[in-house]
């Protein structure tokens, strides 16, 4: 029997896939966890309790009879460096969607002076989870293949917003091309440019505008731009006529018809959009899923092709061996295009702009992306969810290969990606945190969270759970908003909540001086009211840093033990659990996988920690002498816990919390005894 001291200095691999539990040979094993629930892995190596969720609004009554998948959507909107908004789309009925606005953690009320706290947007009967958006300055553009593109424009102040249908100049496309040979001759009055054509018989109708005249004997092709009469039209030549003022004989010309707007109720509308280098791009449409539409330069709503000059509109269809319906686009180093089957980009040499004459779409990788999940930018790369929803891939340009690569970032933790619904990235806000990639799962309502610091190869997954289900997540600057479905009483409720690292409960509100709704003013008695959103729930209560016994909300209120002097926080509890992998000391005599093992003692390094339990034993963080009735302290240092009893097959340490307080674990040392 041998005793070995082991030291896990960091947890930066995060929770790894149970399928990897036997991989004691890989380097990551030493820094990994078998479970990381409701913690955030720090790029420095430790982990901390995840932030609590601040209750923001109850949108249940605004949601019509739709499934939550298609009825609610979070959309960020950044107007300026200091004015960022979170828009919450809630589908009221098959015509109208209500949009709620939040800024800096506060809901904006009385939108447009209407008295309502929302903007009514006639989006029609669309599933919001497939709605795509892009933003430029004060304008948010919304597209969906079953909806004519819309815009929401911020007005003079934060509560002034305008919703409208975009007035687009559509490209013309012949979905069903037809030709006919009307009787009579036609005579052009010039050979090229804008030409007046006179027919010997009445052949032209108003429907012929934007249709074509082709000369069959010889050459000449022109688009009709104006009908003057049944016998006279104005055309713009695409190919010149051979002779002017010379009749083209009956039968020697034809009308080519079938050209119509590329986007319509019948043909569908654009699926994705992004701004890129002075153009607005629409990626795919219902009828043309693999076509890229680019507007005229700085004429964002003009998509009609002209003479293919450098700043003219662009319409290109990907010619590949599969459908490649465009699911997403991103303006990055290049214009990146994500389809259901592969990833593409529009290469540009040096500072050359994309023009009709040089546009090409190169296939980079063949993974396919999941529809309805917008890729996010992360440190020069683009993160996207693979088609089946089982991997996060980083679309990153390789200077060696001069091409993009799609590396699997979630290889070690693909089990946390179940049925991803959306994805958001909160960029690091200080040096002590990394980027935070958040992905809610549909099937169990959990949220996979990856702490990312690419420069240090840190990709540390963890899992957030709550009393309910995470439905959607989005980031507005430093603020992370989420939609949570909760069961209150027997009713299903949909709440807008926001992660707040100063709080340690979910769906909480705080009572303090100068509070802003939905937080409340500090009560002058022991009753904390306005808790209707938690009616019937057993809640955690923290008063002035004291954790009180659990309360049950009744009639929207609870009664606490004393009048607070500074604050009260009331919210739902969430369980923190972190479990190390089976201890494997890698002795010179061999591995100990098959042996019984026992952790004799554990010394945990913690930082500003108020509560922590190891293998079910709460660490005594207070120092002697105890002062009865004092608030919990924030302890920084190491705490030894011994003896720990019992042999097991795995010998793992489990960190939990017994109270809704703060905890940060930096590292752990433990003594291990192995049997024969």
């Amino acid at each position, binding site marked *: 029997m041998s005793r070995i001291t082991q030291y896990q200095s960091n947890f930066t691999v995060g929770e790894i896939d149970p399928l990897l539990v036997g991989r004691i040979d890989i380097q990551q094993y030493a820094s990994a966890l078998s479970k990381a629930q409701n913690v955030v892995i720090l790029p420095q190596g430790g982990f901390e309790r995840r932030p609590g969720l601040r209750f923001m609004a109850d949108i249940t009554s605004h949601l019509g009879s739709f499934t939550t998948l298609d009825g609610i959507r979070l959309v960020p909107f950044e107007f300026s460096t200091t004015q960022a908004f979170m828009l919450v789309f809630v589908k009221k009925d098959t015509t109208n969607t209500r949009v709620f606005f939040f800024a800096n953690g506060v809901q904006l009320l009385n939108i447009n002076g209407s008295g309502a706290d929302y903007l009514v947007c006639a989006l029609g009967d669309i599933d919001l989870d497939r709605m795509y958006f892009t933003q430029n300055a004060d304008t948010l553009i919304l597209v969906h293949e079953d909806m004519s593109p819309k815009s929401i424009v911020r007005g003079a102040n934060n509560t002034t917003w305008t919703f409208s249908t975009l007035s687009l100049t559509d490209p013309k496309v012949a979905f069903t091309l037809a030709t006919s040979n009307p009787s009579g001759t036609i005579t052009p009055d010039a050979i090229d440019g804008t030409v007046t054509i006179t027919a010997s018989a009445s052949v032209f109708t108003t429907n012929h505008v934007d249709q074509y005249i082709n000369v069959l004997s010889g050459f000449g092709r022109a688009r009709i731009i104006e009908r003057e009469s049944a016998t006279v039209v104005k055309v713009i030549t695409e190919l010149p006529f051979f002779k002017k003022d010379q009749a083209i004989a009956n039968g020697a010309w034809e009308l080519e018809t079938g050209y119509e707007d590329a986007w319509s109720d019948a043909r569908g509308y654009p699926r994705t959009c992004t701004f890129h280098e002075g153009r607005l791009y629409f990626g795919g449409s219902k009828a043309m899923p693999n076509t890229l539409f680019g507007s005229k330069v700085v004429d964002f709503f003009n998509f009609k092709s002209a003479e293919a000059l450098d700043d003219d509109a662009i319409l*290109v*269809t990907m*010619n590949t061996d599969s459908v490649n319906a465009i699911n997403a686009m991103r303006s990055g180093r290049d214009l990146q295009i994500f389809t259901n089957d592969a990833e593409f980009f529009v290469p540009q040499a040096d500072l050359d702009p994309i023009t009709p004459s040089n546009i090409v779409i190169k296939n980079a990788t063949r993974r396919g992306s999941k529809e309805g999940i917008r890729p996010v930018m992360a440190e020069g790369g683009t993160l996207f969810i693979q088609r089946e929803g089982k991997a996060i891939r980083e679309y990153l340009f390789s200077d060696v290969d001069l091409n993009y690569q799609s590396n699997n970032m979630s290889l070690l933790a693909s089990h946390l990606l179940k049925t991803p619904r959306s994805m958001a990235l909160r960029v690091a806000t200080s040096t002590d945190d990394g980027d935070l990639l958040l992905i809610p799962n549909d099937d169990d309502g959990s949220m996979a969270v990856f702490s990312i610091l690419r420069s240090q190869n840190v990709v540390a997954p963890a899992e957030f759970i709550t009393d309910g289900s995470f439905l959607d997540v989005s980031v507005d600057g430093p603020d992370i908003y989420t939609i949570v479905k909760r069961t209150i009483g027997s009713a299903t409720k949909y709440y807008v909540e926001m992660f707040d690292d100063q709080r340690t409960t979910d769906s909480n509100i705080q009572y303090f001086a100068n509070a802003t709704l939905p937080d409340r003013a500090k009560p002058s008695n022991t009753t904390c009211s306005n808790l209707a959103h938690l009616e019937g729930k057993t809640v955690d209560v923290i008063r002035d840093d004291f954790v009180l016994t659990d309360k049950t909300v009744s009639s929207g209120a609870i009664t606490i033990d004393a009048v607070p002097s500074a604050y009260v926080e009331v919210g739902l509890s969430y369980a923190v659990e972190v479990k190390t992998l089976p201890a494997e000391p890698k002795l010179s005599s061999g591995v100990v996988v098959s042996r019984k093992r026992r952790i004799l003692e554990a010394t945990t390094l913690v930082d500003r920690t108020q509560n922590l339990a190891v293998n079910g034993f709460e660490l005594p963080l207070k120092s002697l002498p105890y002062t009865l009735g004092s608030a919990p302290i924030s302890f920084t240092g190491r705490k030894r816990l011994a003896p720990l009893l019992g042999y097991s097959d795995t010998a793992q340490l489990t960190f939990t919390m017994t109270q809704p307080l703060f905890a940060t674990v930096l590292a752990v040392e433990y003594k291990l005894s192995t049997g024969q």
Partner: protein
Amino acid sequence: MTMAVAGLVLAGVSAYAQIKQGEATKKAMYNKAKHTTLAGRVEATKAKEQGVQVLKATYKALSTVNAVASAGGLEPTLGTPQDIGTFGILNPGLNDFITSKDNEFLAISSANAQAQDERFAGRQAKKAGYIGALTTMGSAMVSYNSIGSAPAGGTGTTPISNSSPGSPGYQTARYGNVR
């Protein structure tokens, strides 16, 4: 008498020469017209060849556009690649072709017009030869008839050949005889 006959003969020879010269000039001008026509046809052929080359170049450029679009992952027969082919290649190509056809027509019609002028000049030269010959013979005949009779008011010793046209003596001799 001998001198008069000799003069008549000489005039005949001269007239014949004038006729032959006119005919020769006409022939030369007709030959020149033929060359001009041919030169025009050559120019027209060149223009036509240029047109053919334009079409070939257009076709080649169009195939390049198709190939580049396809290599670039794009459907070449739709949208922008088609526009590039139409507006960037076919339209200027066909305009150049039309220009070359115009040049071909101009070369032929211009040569034909010049040849026609030359033929006309030839005919005129021939006509001038005949007229010159007729005039020469007429003058000779007049001279022949007047040799031997004294000019009215004259000394009879002033040789005709010494009278310069327009001189008083010539005037007198000529009109004096007529009258």
